[in-house]
């Protein structure tokens, strides 16, 4: 039984020097067989396990992770959460996630520091204005809050933006989703891990998958660095390494894995109280609770699994940041890193069954998966438990690349494509 976190538990543990906190999740050895196995202990994988246990009462399950939980893209993204996507299918998917975010800290009894500080998308040319206005209308038709701001309103909402009309890419306006914002990315992984573990889910770290065993068209289990684990249901949530797992199972995916970079500055006093994204000049920025500016750069143009990224990509982003925010010209950057993102041709994810019975994939989130973590886990759990997609993820099946029914979100997937 997990102890509940509260102000009283905090006081009690403070009195004993914080030495007697219960561990947040166990460190079990794998059993011989599970009812379901999730490959990948990031936010999406842990959320999948959590909802499988909570909503579908599948508690004899394991999450296997080759490193440590939340050490991949969950710990490497820029923590932005929004749902202002263009098409109905995407609006349904991402707003489902946003609604879960709104009550997630309470549900998990774990503070994920969800902050609805708003996300503003800037327009820098006439086509941007048309596209963003169209997206605003589409959002409102789908019940998603969105407003169009003119240049003066942009300046009023975020005063440090340079709205001078004689810069290379002047600000012609922008859209604002006020329900959007940020969350503490590590806490999301830890919160879901703690919640899943409390319901009996085995979280097995430092356990790399080496092979997928199948007999005919049915999966039978996985070969790992901790031995063979049997299961008739396997959900793969391996982000940038999805193709690696797919190759083990002998199936093909429409993915390309590329490094996506982010960087943070030295911490400073509060200067920007929202998230500002700018597709045309490729820059987005927010400020963490520690005071660091969190800046997202783009992807490299070639396949790579190096988790580094090229210097010129960072340079382009910072050039744009400096034009839009001259006040940052003397900021020092503290850290830079890369994560490997799996990009789909239509910039939409895959949450789907495959041609192999019992093998499911949740991948293709590309450059923007963090925002969808709770919704993705919920819908993937539904798909695995019922062997059928939920109506919210039916459009995100693998077969859309055969039927041609793509969900083209290159516009709303923002800066990195």
């Amino acid at each position: 039984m997990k102890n509940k976190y509260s102000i009283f538990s905090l006081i009690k543990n403070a009195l004993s020097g914080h030495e007697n906190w219960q561990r947040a999740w166990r460190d079990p050895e794998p059993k011989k067989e599970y009812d379901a196995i999730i490959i990948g202990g990031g936010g999406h994988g842990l959320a999948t396990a959590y909802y499988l246990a909570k909503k579908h009462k599948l508690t004899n399950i394991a999450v296997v992770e080759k490193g440590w939980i939340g050490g991949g893209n969950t710990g490497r993204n820029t923590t932005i959460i929004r749902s202002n996507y263009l098409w109905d299918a995407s609006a349904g998917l991402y707003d489902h996630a946003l609604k879960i975010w709104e009550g997630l800290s309470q549900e998990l009894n774990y503070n994920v520091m969800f902050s609805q500080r708003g996300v503003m998308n800037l327009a820098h040319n006439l086509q941007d204005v048309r596209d963003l206005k169209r997206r605003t209308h589409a959002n409102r038709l789908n019940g998603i809050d969105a407003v169009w701001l003119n240049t003066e309103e942009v300046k009023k909402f975020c005063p440090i933006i340079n709205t001078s009309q004689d810069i290379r890419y002047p600000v012609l306006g922008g859209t604002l989703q006020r329900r959007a914002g940020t969350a503490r990315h590590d806490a999301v992984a830890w919160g879901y891990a703690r919640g899943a573990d409390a319901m009996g889910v085995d979280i097995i770290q430092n356990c790399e998958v080496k092979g997928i065993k199948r007999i005919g068209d049915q999966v039978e289990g996985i070969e790992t660095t901790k031995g063979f684990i049997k299961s008739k249901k396997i959900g793969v949530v391996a982000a940038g390494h999805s193709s690696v797992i797919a190759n083990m199972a002998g199936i093909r995916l429409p993915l390309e894995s590329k490094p996506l970079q982010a960087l943070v500055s030295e911490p400073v006093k509060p200067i920007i109280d929202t998230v500002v994204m700018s597709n045309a000049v490729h820059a987005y920025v927010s400020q963490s609770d520690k005071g660091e500016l969190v800046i997202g750069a783009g992807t490299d143009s070639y396949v790579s699994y190096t988790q580094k990224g090229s210097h010129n990509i960072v340079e382009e982003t910072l050039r744009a940041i400096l034009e839009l925010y001259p006040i940052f010209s003397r900021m020092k950057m503290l850290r830079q890193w890369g994560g490997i993102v799996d990009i789909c041709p239509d910039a939409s994810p895959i949450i789907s069954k495959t041609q192999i019975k019992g093998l499911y994939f949740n991948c293709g989130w590309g450059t923007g998966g963090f925002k969808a973590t709770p919704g993705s886990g919920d819908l993937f759990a539904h798909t695995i438990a019922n062997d059928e997609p939920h109506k919210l993820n039916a459009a995100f099946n693998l077969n859309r690349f055969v039927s041609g029914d793509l969900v083209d979100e290159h516009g709303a997937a923002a800066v990195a494509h």
Partner: protein
Amino acid sequence: MFIINCPYCGERDQTEFSCGGEAHIERPKQPTELSDDQWAEYLFMRKNIKGVQFERWNHAHGCRKWFNMVRDTSNDKIQAVYKMGEKPPVK
């Protein structure tokens, strides 16, 4: 970021080049006879290998010629560069 040895111009910075993705994907000889599955395979499905991959590159800010490259995607080390139409020098 790395240095690429263009078969026409010699060693140049990678920023001068653009990557054209997986190499040796053959254009269908009889497009009208392809099934939807075969189209999906040709258009969208990729090996996306972690390890040695064959790919096409273009010296976009140089001679503007296309060529092939063998590169290990796990460490970005280039193993070979060869011209279009030539057989890959490594397996």
